[in-house]
Structure formats: structure tokens, C-alpha cells
């Protein structure tokens, strides 16, 4: 199973995402933002970092990169895509996910191990979790406050588009404790915390993050 990981200028966590895919048993495929070639991958990870230095808005310029046009087209027809942190910001800016990520309400960069509640286990990225399961993975951001208009939030809740919620404290002031959301077809998931940093006991607070990557490998096989 070929899982593509996109590198933009300023990506930081692409190498950790590559490692997570490999540990989960997949074949990581490096993708370059300026290409038009998705290299026949079965799923795509948009990693964390500070693409284009977060200039203009976090993720705004990366969302218009050449490769993102292919990602948007393929995602609309079902390609599983996971956006982590800056990758989540990129997917929101690209219009694949609803809402926006803004400056943390307390204005501080927040870096800690973060408990989350998994709200949906029927997406390609969360099938190895149980609904309602508590997982702990690191969160690290300065612009992670999830916002959308109240009526849009109501619609997202009604459509079960909230995939993860912060528990035991909201690290950034996100509305309704939203840590991650899904696209309408459920194939695209974005979240601010970092599953790729919780894949080994030596370096992570847990190995809960591995579940994202084992989930997508099963989803791809089943497809």
C-alpha cells in the first residue's frame, strides 16, 4: 500500500509521517508540492510544519500549490487524505474541509500531550479506534483554534463531521472542543494534534497515533 506524504517548503513533520507509515506496514512515497504527479498512491498525508513560513495565513499558499490541485480532485472522488496540524490548515484553505484555524485564544504556542475523544470510527483514518475511545497524542500549535460560523458548526455536528474532540482541557480555544473534522464523504480528515509523534514508546506519550496509519492501510485494502 502506497501512502504519499507531501513536502512543501517549510514542512517539518513529513519525515515523522514517513516513519509512521513504514512502522504501520505501508510503503511511504515522498511527494513534492511543485509536481503534478501523485505517483499512484492509495492515500495522502499532508504533514505538519510551517509551509511557506505561514505567510498570508497558515496553509494558505501551500493550499494553492500545483500538487494540491491533484489532491483536491482525487479527494473529491474518494482518495483518503489526512491533514495533520499545518496539513489540516492546508486542507481547510484548499476547501476540502470546512472551517478555519486561527490564532490560539491565549496567543501562546501550546505544546503538550493531549487527550482526545474519537467521535467517529467509520472514516478511513479512524477505523482501528472505537467510537468514544480516549487517545493521547501530542499537540503543538500557535494557530489551532478551530472556528466556523455557528450555523456551520450545527450542520457539522448534525452530519457527524466532528471526528476528534479535545478532552481534559482545550489547548487553543477551539469552538466546541473540536480537534478534527471530516469531509462530507468522510474520506478527508484533518486534525491539529500529531498522531505521527505517538507511534513508539521511546519517543511518544503513547502509541495511539499508529492507529491512524494502520486504519488507512485496511481501508485501502478494502477499497
Amino acid at each position, binding site marked *: 500500500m502506497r501512502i504519499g506524504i507531501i513536502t512543501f517548503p517549510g514542512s517539518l513533520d513529513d519525515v515523522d509521517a514517513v516513519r509512521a507509515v513504514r512502522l504501520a506496514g505501508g510503503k511511504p512515497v515522498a511527494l513534492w508540492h511543485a509536481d503534478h504527479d501523485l505517483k499512484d498512491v492509495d492515500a495522502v498525508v499532508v504533514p505538519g510544519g510551517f509551509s511557506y513560513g505561514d505567510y498570508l495565513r497558515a496553509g494558505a499558499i501551500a493550499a494553492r500549490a500545483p500538487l494540491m490541485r491533484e489532491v483536491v480532485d482525487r479527494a473529491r472522488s474518494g482518495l483518503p487524505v489526512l491533514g495533520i496540524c499545518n496539513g489540516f490548515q492546508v486542507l481547510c484553505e484548499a476547501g476540502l474541509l470546512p472551517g478555519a484555524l486561527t490564532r490560539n485564544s491565549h*496567543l501562546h504556542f501550546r505544546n503538550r500531550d493531549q487527550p482526545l475523544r474519537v467521535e467517529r470510527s467509520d472514516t478511513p483514518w479512524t477505523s482501528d479506534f472505537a467510537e468514544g475511545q480516549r487517545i493521547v497524542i501530542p499537540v503543538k500549535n500557535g494557530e489551532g483554534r478551530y472556528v466556523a460560523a455557528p450555523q456551520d458548526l450545527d450542520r457539522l455536528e448534525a452530519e457527524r463531521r466532528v471526528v476528534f474532540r479535545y478532552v481534559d482541557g482545550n489547548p487553543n480555544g477551539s469552538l466546541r472542543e473540536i480537534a478534527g473534522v471530516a469531509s462530507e464523504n468522510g474520506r478527508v480528515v484533518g486534525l491539529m494534534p500529531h498522531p505521527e509523534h505517538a507511534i513508539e514508546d521511546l519517543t511518544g506519550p503513547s502509541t495511539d497515533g499508529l492507529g491512524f496509519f494502520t486504519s488507512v492501510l485496511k481501508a485501502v485494502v478494502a477499497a
Partner: protein
Amino acid sequence: MSRKGCMANVTGRADGEFAGPGTFVPVPRVVVDVVLKPEISDPQGQAVLGALGRLGHGGVRSVRQGKHFVLDVEGTPDEAELKQIAETLLANPVIEDVELHLPTD
């Protein structure tokens, strides 16, 4: 060899380029202002407001922080194109309002 005009102008006024001895080609200047929508909280603006209060400027009731873009364009500005640039790249319509200021002359 061209040299940018050194005047830093305000909204809507044309700057220009020195295209050679004795020539001055005006370059239309377009300004785009972007601010967070009123319903989106602005913690940076609130921090500025807090600082103003500590500095004794208690008369300031609210601060909203935004972005100001200055675009020098070639030829006659194409309003439709600039509107598209402003609304699809310079601002994120999910959270921001945008104002386009075309040259006034």
C-alpha cells in the same frame, strides 16, 4: 534599467517607475484591506486593547487587527480580476471580510 519610485503613497494614489531619463510611467496602485469578521474573536486585537489600557488610553473601546495589501498592477486595473484575487487568496471568506480600494483618479 528601471528604478522604483521612492514615494510610499497612501490608498489609491498611483506610484510610478522611472523608465529612463525624463520619463515617469505611473503604476496603478490597488489596496486591499482584510479584517476578521465581527463574529470571529480577535485575541491579537484584544491584546493590543489591553496594552492600550495599561498605557492609559482607556478611551479606546475596541481594537480589531487586520492586514493591508498594496498591489502595483500593470495597465488599467481589472476590477473583476482584483476582486477575485482579494476574495480567494488575500482573504479567507470563512473568517475574514475584505475591502478592495481601486485607484481613485
